[in-house]
């Protein structure tokens, strides 16, 4: 994906959005590329971005002190990184580190918040779509917690 402004965001998250809403979102979006080892966000920082990944792999992880780095999930093509921009206090809860060079459409969270306040229909569409992302992530985390491959005999 070329780096820079976009006129239309091609990502499953926004599939089916009206042209009017797409134009508004494209106004606060740009394409970018991130190299291996680069952090897209760090825990505790202000969350004012969202990344719609089109290639590469991003690791969501935390520094566990003596345990070392704890990698909780990886995100790749067609995934969405970042929904902390939606909810106060708008802080990242995880580090987002690039494992394989990532190409993504970056959305400006602050601009999106302003948009959804002004245009409630767009706000509804966005919250519906991000809720599905959060729901999927929650279900995957629950499955991880179940430790299905462990020896529970």
């Amino acid at each position, binding site marked *: 994906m070329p780096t820079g402004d976009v006129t239309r965001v091609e990502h499953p998250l926004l599939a089916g959005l009206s042209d009017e809403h797409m134009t508004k979102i494209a106004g606060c979006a740009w394409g970018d590329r991130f190299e291996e080892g680069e952090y897209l966000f760090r825990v505790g920082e202000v969350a004012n971005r969202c990344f719609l990944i089109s290639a590469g*792999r991003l*690791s969501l*992880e935390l520094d566990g002190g003596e345990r*070392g*780095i*704890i*990698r*909780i*999930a*990886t995100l*790749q*093509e*067609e995934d969405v990184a970042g929904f902390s921009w939606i909810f106060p206090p708008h802080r990242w809860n995880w580090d987002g580190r690039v*494992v*394989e060079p990532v190409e993504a459409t970056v959305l400006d969270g602050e601009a999106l918040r302003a948009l959804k306040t002004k245009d409630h229909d767009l706000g509804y569409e966005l919250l519906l779509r991000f809720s599905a992302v959060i729901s999927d992530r929650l*279900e*995957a985390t629950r*499955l*991880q917690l*179940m*430790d*299905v*491959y*462990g*020896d529970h*005999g």
Partner: protein
Amino acid sequence: MCTVTTAEVLPDPMLTTPMVVMARRQETADTFTIDLAPPGGFPFEPGQFTMLYVYGVGEVPISISGDPARPEVLTHTIRRAGKVTQALAGLKPGDSVGVRGPYGRGWPLEAARDKDVVLVGGGIGVAPLRPALTHIINHRADYRLVSMAIGFRSPKEMLFVDEIRQWRQHFDLDIELTVDAADDTWRGSVGVVTRLIPMLDAGEQAVAMVCGPGVMMTFTARALRDRDFQPENIYVSLERNMKCGIGLCGHCQYGPLFVCTDGPVRQFSEVERLFGIREV
């Protein structure tokens, strides 16, 4: 005097055939693979199992994990979980083990011909799928798009590491791998195996073969349904405690099914309801 001719004596299905251990490989801390030498060969269908008898200890059902095109070697990949598998873990090349089988219904490789195929394996559940994938590789022209999603608990608990690396080098196979937990030395995917399913190449009428813990198979089937897989095209491999392996004792009864003879492989649409009943 009553005489019985040889032709009238049916082989006793409960009798084991002694086989010698040819090789043993440690896969992970608690999982190992043994190759047995069956006298006269041991043809089987991918997905079938045998009853392995450790003399003086007991018998367990174990899925066959080897190459169906090589009946001269009978391979099982076994996780140490109880008394008998613990004894199997102690076998060395040259030791002997009793074998009955092969038993059960295998994977629908005939029904999957000329279709896209998706295999989804989790943990030790990758072992019963290995003969299916090996068969597909051996008869690649008979199948369309072929992909496999593999999930393990952690990088340390991965099975068939070298073989998975070889599978991933096939240009006409899409092999996706993930682990549930990892540190930063792991460069691959982290997350549950169901998250790989949207990434797999498969079109309409694709056939899915799924093997792993029950919870994993339920969620995998749900994710496949979300991708418009027809319920009757999703196959799962059931696991129950077995005793006779030939449908007599009822130990492996699962609702109306005897897993040993009616399974282990069944269409998910046939067993989905049973998965939700705690009492079964």
